[in-house]
């Protein structure tokens, strides 16, 4: 029952990876830092181009479509739309490679 031979879910059924259903507070903190870093980069690009009197389509589109970290609601920051969930929401950390990609907007109404 105890020790190395205890019967856990992982021991009884081969490959089993478990991930918590919600983010910890420090995961959320690091996630906010990442969001802000992307915001800063977009800001740097925009200001540098403006100085030269230029614009870039990708930067303009991001600015018009994406909310900044401060503008985002906690709901959109830490969860994302999932049609298979009962509540239509799952933790953003369920997204593969979630620390290296941007997931900011969700379908309206969900």
């Amino acid at each position, binding site marked *: 029952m105890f020790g190395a031979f205890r019967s856990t879910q992982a021991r009884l059924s081969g490959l089993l990876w478990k991930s918590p259903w919600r983010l910890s507070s420090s995961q959320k903190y690091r996630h906010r830092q990442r969001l802000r870093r992307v915001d800063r980069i*977009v800001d*740097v*690009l925009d200001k540098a*181009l403006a*100085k030269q009197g230029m614009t*870039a389509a990708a930067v303009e589109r991001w600015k018009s479509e994406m909310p900044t970290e401060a503008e985002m609601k906690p709901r959109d920051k830490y969860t994302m739309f999932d049609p298979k969930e009962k509540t239509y929401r799952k933790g953003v950390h369920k997204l593969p490679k979630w620390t*290296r990609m941007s997931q900011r907007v969700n379908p309206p109404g969900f």
Partner: protein
Amino acid sequence: MFEGWLFPTPLSQRGASLTITIMASVAPKMSWFKITLIRSGIGMTERQNGVLKALGLRHRLKTVYHPVSPDTAGMIMKVKELLAVSEVDKPLTQAEIHEKRQPAKGYYIEKPGGVREDVESS
């Protein structure tokens, strides 16, 4: 009436007039993006890894400099989650980046007259 065919301007003068027009238009001071790869591109899409390659970011913590232009900005936007970006006035060469990363020697050589070599040179 255009008389350039009959009396062509000497090349030297043409060059001079060209320089004047460029200077008169007052181009903004050129600047560069300092781009560092801080998250690995492993497992990202082929397209994103292609952009990293095109930027010259072969491994983590590699720093490259690219001129500020819409092209560069578009490339940075493709992989913005993996980078740290700032705007600088002057690009550093790889040798200069390497030099900056060297730790302090831990000693300095005194010269006659009590002048520190490292202070004098800087």
